[in-house]
């Protein structure tokens, strides 16, 4: 892919003052919502909007990659009662720092996208859950939301139509688990963020027992573009099976870390060498974590022809996740890095399920031993054993997210772990 240099960003365009409503509208902002509400030839009913979004195949940018329009189509028919859209701005997966860029640079794009989604699913209230640490960005959003209300773009009879919806900002208070969609619902209801057992799925019984859809902030921000330019346009951007713009967050040992908007399917090496301008201090690349801390690590030798889309990454033995890529140079202590990741998941486990509560604790403890040079190669096998007892056995996917890095980092960098270990003690007879 060589045309990325001429790619025109649509989520975070390089336009001064885009965070202000008049500038946003001057550049086509709210044309999509207007068309949805008033152009009954193009959009005869809400389900036509759902269909267009489904055709576009916006794969969820929160990590799971599920087609947004397809998810919307799971909402039961409206029955006159309340229905909710919960927007996920919890953004807490280590390596991920993209949604806050939308809050800061293009808040109305997200608000417009959420409003269109609300129309498409006959939503009565939109709740936007933002991690509590993002206080500075919540303040920016408060201003944007209040401006949207003042301009008749939220609230009663939006843009002079019969459609009305409210939007409420809700601050978290420090808990990674609240990014998990059902934990987020519990937190919005004012409780501890314990994930719910599924089924029932949120589309059936979500917030206060009513139909609810949960989408990531970046996912919803792609909606106005799809409505304005069509699903075909969206599908023409980037990788065929995972189309559209992606906010790549690049961090770690690179010269120019940051969030870059580019088409999906970017070659990993182009992102590292050209976009982020190479590994720092002229060092060699050792490995990357492609999409947030839970996605399996990939050694440099596997990155040659790899592209950033769900299928290619799965083929390489990892995942797209949040496209928050963490780059590690040749001097990185892989053992210690894995221990730090495990410490995170142990800290964030909500403790409801025994395999997760106990498993994350053991992973951290044993890895700490290995870091200190006190582990044995039996401990490495024990770690792998613990991961297989955690995966797929819990209420939510945090346990899997904690297990994957351990499983794959040990299997892909076993020599480095072995080198840290004492020889196994052979029992003396």
């Amino acid at each position, binding site marked *: 892919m060589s045309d990325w240099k001429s790619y025109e960003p649509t989520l975070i365009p*390089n336009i001064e003052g885009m965070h202000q409503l008049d500038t946003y509208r001057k550049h086509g902002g709210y044309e999509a919502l207007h068309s949805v509400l008033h152009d009954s030839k193009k959009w005869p009913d809400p389900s036509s909007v759902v269909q267009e979004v489904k055709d576009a195949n916006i794969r969820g940018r929160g990590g799971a990659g599920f087609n947004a329009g397809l998810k919307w189509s799971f909402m039961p028919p409206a029955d006159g009662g309340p229905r909710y859209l919960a927007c996920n701005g919890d953004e807490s997966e280590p390596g*991920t720092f993209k949604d806050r860029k939308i809050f800061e640079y293009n808040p109305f794009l997200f608000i417009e996208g959420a409003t269109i989604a609300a129309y498409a699913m006959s939503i009565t209230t939109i709740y936007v859950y933002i991690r509590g640490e993002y206080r500075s960005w919540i303040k920016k959003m408060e201003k944007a939301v209040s401006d949207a209300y003042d301009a008749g773009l939220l609230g009663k009879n939006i843009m002079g139509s019969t459609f009305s919806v409210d939007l409420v900002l809700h601050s978290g*208070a420090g808990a990674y688990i609240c990014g998990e969609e059902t934990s987020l619902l519990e*937190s919005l209801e004012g409780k501890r963020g314990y994930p719910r057992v599924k089924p029932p799925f949120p589309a059936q019984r979500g917030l206060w027992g009513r139909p609810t859809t949960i989408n990531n902030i970046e996912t919803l921000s792609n909606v106005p573009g799809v409505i304005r330019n069509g699903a075909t346009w969206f599908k023409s951007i980037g990788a065929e099976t995972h189309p559209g713009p992606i906010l790549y967050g690049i961090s770690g040992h690179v010269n120019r870390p940051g969030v870059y908007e580019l088409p999906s399917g970017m070659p990993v090496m182009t992102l590292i060498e050209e976009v982020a301008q190479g590994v720092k201090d002229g060092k060699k690349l050792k490995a990357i974590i492609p999409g947030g801390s839970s996605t399996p690590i990939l050694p440099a030798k596997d990155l040659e022809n790899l592209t950033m889309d769900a299928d290619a990454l799965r083929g390489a033995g990892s995942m797209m996740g949040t496209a928050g890529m963490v780059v*590690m140079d040749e001097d990185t202590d892989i053992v210690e890095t894995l221990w730090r990741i495990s410490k995170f998941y142990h800290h964030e486990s909500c403790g409801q399920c025994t395999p997760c509560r106990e498993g994350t604790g053991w992973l951290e403890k044993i890895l700490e031993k290995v870091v200190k040079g006190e582990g044995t190669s039996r401990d490495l096998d024990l770690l792998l054993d613990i991961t297989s007892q955690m995966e797929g056995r819990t209420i939510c996917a945090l346990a899997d997210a904690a297990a994957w890095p351990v499983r794959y980092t040990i299997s892909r960098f076993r020599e480095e772990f072995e080198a840290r270990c004492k020889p196994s003690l052979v029992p003396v007879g």
Partner: protein
Amino acid sequence: MAKKGSKNTATNPPTSYSFTKEQLKEIEALKAKYPEVQAVTLPVLWIAQDSFGHVNPDVQALVAKTLDLPESHVHGVAEFYTQYFKEPKGKHVLDVCTCLSCGLSGGVDIVRHLEKKLGINVGETTADGQFTLQEAECLGACGYAPMMQITNDVYVNHLTPEKVDKVLDQLISGSTPDFESIAMPLVDSTHTTKRGGSNE
């Protein structure tokens, strides 16, 4: 670091807590945004913490009474979320991220520097009640590592020991660092961008 002069808020909290009329009005307005009153537990704990500096058991009781919810519910929520201070902390709480990307970029060195400078260990508060030092999990600023958050509010990015010292001086003198707008890098050049998201 000087440890004299300031009142030790960490050991002399006021003994009774109440919301002002304005705050009660704010709480009523919040309730209108949700179908059930329980949903305002988190927002009201925030109002309380911003006002009293913490949500200790007495403050939790006030929140429960104000919302007519069981104390055990409010307590359970306050305990679950790490940003709520269940006891008084220093005037400035420094949350230094040592998670994945910050850990790779020197976050732990920043913690060690602060420990030396403040004469305390992680998790402790200086004797003058000015600073509490904490280690944080990923704060969503991974590209600007290492970084810290100050008392649940502003982020300070790209930390070096020199920058940390400056921030401490600033906090002691009574001002808070400004919001740091980080220009979005452009893809094909090293120039900064025209985008501005933070100049209101």
